[in-house]
C-alpha cells in the first residue's frame, strides 16, 4: 500500500517535471524560432549556436550546470529547476528548428499583409506565427516527448564526485529500488513508468497527431478534446486581451534597451557569483584525462558508426512495412513511442540479467542503450516526415508497372525517403554521442560496467567529481562533433538536396 502511494506520488512529480519542461520548451521554441525567422541578425547569430547545441552531448555539461543552479538557488528549488532545465535541453532544439523552418517557409506576402494592416507583435504572434507552425510543433513534440523521458532519470539522480542530488520521482525511485535490491519496487516502478508514458501518448500526443497531422496513430481522443477546447478557449481569450491591450497602449511588448542591458548584466553577475566555487584551478587534473581522449574517441567511433548503420537499416525496413499496412504502422509507432521513452539509465538494471549472464552481455546492453539514443530519431523522422513524402503518383506508377520488392525499395521508396533520412541520421549522430555517456559506463548498486570509450571517460570524470576534466572532455567531444557536422554532414546534405530534393 505504502509502495503504491509512493509510486503514485513519484509518478505525479515526474509528470509535473515533464509537463513544466514541455511548456517551457514550447514557449522557448515559439519565441526563439519566430524571432530567428523575423530578424536577419538573430538568425545569423543563433542558427550556428543552435546547430552546435543540438548535436553536442548535453549530458556531459549538465553536472556543471546543475552545480551552478544548485548553488544559486539553495534548497530544493535549484535542484528542481536544474532537473527541468535538463529535460528542456533534451526537448527544445528540434522544436525551435521546426518553428523556424515553418515560419521561413511562409509566403513573404503574409508579412506584407501584416505590415499594411498594422498587425502588432501580439496580433502577429496569435494570428500568424503560432498557427503557422502548429503542424511542426505537434510533429516535433511527438519526438521530443520521448527524448524527455529518456533523460528523465539522469535529471532526477545526479552525482558529481561526493555530491549527489536526488529528486523524488519515478526515475529515482526505480534506481533506488534497484540498488536496494527491492525487485518488487523496481519492476512495479518500471511498470508504472511505462503506463504513464503510454497514457500520455494515448490520451494526448496521438490524438493531437491524428487531428493536426492526420497520422494513423492509436489513441483515445476524449481527454485530448477536453484539453484542446480548454486551451483553445484560454488561448482565444488571451489573444483577445493582448491584442486589444496592444492597440490601447501602443507597442509595449518591447523592453527598452537599458532594461535589456541591465537584465543581461544581472544574469552574467549571477553566473559569475555561482561559479566562484568552481575555480578551474585543477586544470592539471584535466590534462591526463584529456590526453587519453583521442584513444577513447577511437573506441567509441566504430560503435557510433555501427549504431547509425543499424538505425538506418532497421528503420527503413520497418518504415517499408508501415507504408504497406496501416495496422503495422499503428502498432510499430505505438511500440516506438513507449520504447523510445524508457529512460536510458533504466535499461542497464532492466537488462542486468542479460548483462551478467553472458560474456558478450554488457556489450549487447551497451548497444541497446546506444540504439535507444539514436534509432528513434531516424525512425520518427521517417514515419512523420518521410512516409508523407513518398509521392502518391510514384506509388501508383510502381503499381501500374508492377515494380515491387527490392526494385521498389531501391528506385522508389528509399530515394523518396532520403531527405528525411538524412535529417534523422544527423540527429541520431548527435544523439548517439549523448547516449554514449549513459551507455558506456554505469554504476548500479556497487556493480560498475565500464565499456571504455569517450562516453565512459565523461561519466568517470563526473563520478570522480573532476569538473575540469568533465568540461574539457565534453568540450573536446563537442568540437569533434561540430567538425564532422561542418565537413561530412554538410556535404552529404548538399548532395541529397541536389539529387533527390524536388523534381
Amino acid at each position: 500500500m505504502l509502495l503504491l502511494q509512493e509510486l503514485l506520488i513519484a509518478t505525479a512529480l515526474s509528470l509535473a517535471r515533464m509537463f513544466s519542461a514541455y511548456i517551457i520548451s514550447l514557449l522557448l521554441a515559439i519565441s526563439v524560432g519566430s524571432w530567428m525567422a523575423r530578424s536577419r541578425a538573430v538568425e545569423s547569430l543563433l542558427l550556428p549556436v543552435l546547430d552546435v547545441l543540438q548535436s553536442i552531448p548535453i549530458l556531459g555539461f549538465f553536472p556543471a550546470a546543475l552545480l551552478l543552479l544548485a548553488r544559486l538557488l539553495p534548497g530544493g528549488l535549484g535542484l528542481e529547476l536544474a532537473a527541468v532545465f535538463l529535460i528542456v535541453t533534451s526537448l527544445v532544439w528540434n522544436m525551435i528548428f521546426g518553428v523556424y523552418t515553418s515560419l521561413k517557409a511562409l509566403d513573404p506576402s503574409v508579412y506584407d499583409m501584416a505590415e499594411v494592416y498594422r498587425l502588432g507583435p501580439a496580433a502577429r504572434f496569435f494570428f500568424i506565427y503560432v498557427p503557422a507552425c502548429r503542424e511542426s510543433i505537434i510533429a516535433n513534440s511527438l519526438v521530443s516527448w520521448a527524448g524527455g523521458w529518456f533523460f528523465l532519470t539522469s535529471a532526477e539522480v545526479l552525482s558529481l564526485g561526493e555530491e549527489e542530488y536526488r529528486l523524488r520521482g519515478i526515475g529515482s525511485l526505480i534506481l533506488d529500488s534497484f540498488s536496494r535490491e527491492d525487485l518488487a519496487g523496481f519492476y512495479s516502478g518500471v511498470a508504472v513508468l511505462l503506463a504513464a508514458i503510454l497514457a500520455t501518448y494515448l490520451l494526448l500526443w496521438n490524438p493531437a497527431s491524428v487531428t493536426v497531422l492526420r497520422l494513423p496513430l492509436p489513441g483515445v481522443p476524449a481527454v485530448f478534446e477536453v484539453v484542446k477546447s480548454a486551451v483553445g478557449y484560454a488561448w482565444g481569450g488571451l489573444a483577445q486581451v493582448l491584442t486589444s491591450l496592444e492597440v490601447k497602449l501602443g507597442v509595449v511588448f518591447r523592453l527598452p534597451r537599458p532594461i535589456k542591458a541591465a537584465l543581461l548584466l544581472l544574469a552574467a553577475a549571477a553566473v559569475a557569483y555561482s561559479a566562484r566555487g568552481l575555480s578551474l584551478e585543477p586544470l592539471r587534473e584535466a590534462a591526463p584525462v584529456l590526453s587519453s581522449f583521442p584513444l577513447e574517441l577511437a573506441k567509441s567511433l566504430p560503435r557510433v558508426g555501427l549504431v547509425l548503420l543499424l538505425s538506418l537499416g532497421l528503420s527503413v525496413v520497418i518504415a517499408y512495412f508501415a507504408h504497406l499496412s496501416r495496422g503495422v504502422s499503428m502498432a510499430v509507432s505505438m511500440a516506438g513511442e513507449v520504447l523510445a521513452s524508457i529512460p536510458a539509465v533504466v535499461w542497464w538494471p532492466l537488462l542486468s540479467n542479460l548483462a551478467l549472464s553472458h560474456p558478450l552481455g554488457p556489450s549487447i546492453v551497451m548497444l541497446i542503450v546506444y540504439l535507444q539514443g539514436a534509432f528513434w530519431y531516424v525512425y520518427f523522422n521517417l514515419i512523420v516526415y518521410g512516409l508523407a513524402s513518398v509521392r502518391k503518383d510514384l506509388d501508383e506508377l510502381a503499381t501500374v508497372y508492377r515494380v515491387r520488392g527490392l526494385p521498389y525499395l531501391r528506385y522508389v521508396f528509399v530515394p523518396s525517403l532520403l531527405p528525411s533520412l538524412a535529417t534523422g541520421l544527423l540527429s541520431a549522430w548527435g544523439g548517439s554521442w549523448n547516449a554514449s555517456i549513459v551507455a558506456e559506463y554505469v554504476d548500479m548498486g556497487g556493480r560498475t560496467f565500464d565499456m571504455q570509450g569517450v562516453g565512459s571517460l565523461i561519466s568517470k570524470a563526473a563520478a570522480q567529481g573532476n569538473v575540469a576534466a568533465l568540461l574539457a572532455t565534453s568540450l573536446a567531444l563537442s568540437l569533434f562533433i561540430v567538425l564532422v557536422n561542418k565537413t561530412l554532414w554538410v556535404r552529404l546534405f548538399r548532395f541529397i538536396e541536389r539529387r533527390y530534393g524536388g523534381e
Partner: protein
Amino acid sequence: MPKVLTISNLRKTFIEDKRVLEVLAGISLEVGEEFISILGPSGCGKTTLLRIIAGLEKADSGEVVFHTPDKRVGFVFQSPTLLPWLTVLENVALPLRASGVRRDEAYEKARKYLSLVGLRAFEDFYPRELSGGMKQRVNIARALAVEPTLLLMDEPFSQLDPLTAESLRSEVLDLWLYGVTTVRAVIMVTHNVDEAILMSDRIVVLSPRPAKVNGIIEVNLPRPRDRRSPEFQKLEDRIYELISA
C-alpha cells in the same frame, strides 16, 4: 476636385550584390477623388511605388502626404495572401481585430463587405476550399473592410483566368462607381493597357527603370466603356506610343 494625396519627388535605389539599382527617379503625382492606374513595363518600379505609398517601404527622399483626416489604406495584393488557418470571415476581420475593434463588431463589418463581393454564404469556408477568383474577392473584401480612404491594388487581376478577371473588373468598378464603400481614391498598378483604359479616370505611364512619369493621360470616355469603340482604340495607340517613348 478635393485632393486626397500628394506624392512629391519620390526617389528610391536598391543595392543588390554591391550594384546600385536606381528604381524610382523622382516621381510626383497629385491624387484627387479618382481612379488612377499606374502603367509601365515589367520591373519598372510600379510595385515599389505602390509599396512606398502603403508604407511597406521607405523612400530615400521625397514624401507622401495625405490631405484627408483619415489616412487608412486598403491593399489588394497580387496573390490573395489569405491565412490558410483562418476562415473567410476571420481573414476579413483580422485587420479590424488587430486594430482593436471588438470581435462581434469586427465580424459584423466583415460580413457587410463579404456581402458586397458576393461571398456572404462562404464566410465559414477556409481559403483552400475557394476558387482563385473567390480568394481574390476575399482579398478585396478585407481591403474594403478596414474602411480605407485610399485603396491600393497591385495587379489584382493578373493571376486570374481571363473570364474571372473580366467579371471581377466590372464588380470592382461597380463598387467604386456606386460609392458604397469609404474609398475616395484608387491607385491600381497594372501592365495591362486595356484594363487601365477600361477602369481608370487617369493613367500614369512610367518609363522603364529608373521610373519617371512619361506622361499622364486623362480617360474621358463615357462608362461603361466599349473596347471596340474607335476612341478606345485611339487611346490605346497613344499609350503604347508613350510607353515606348
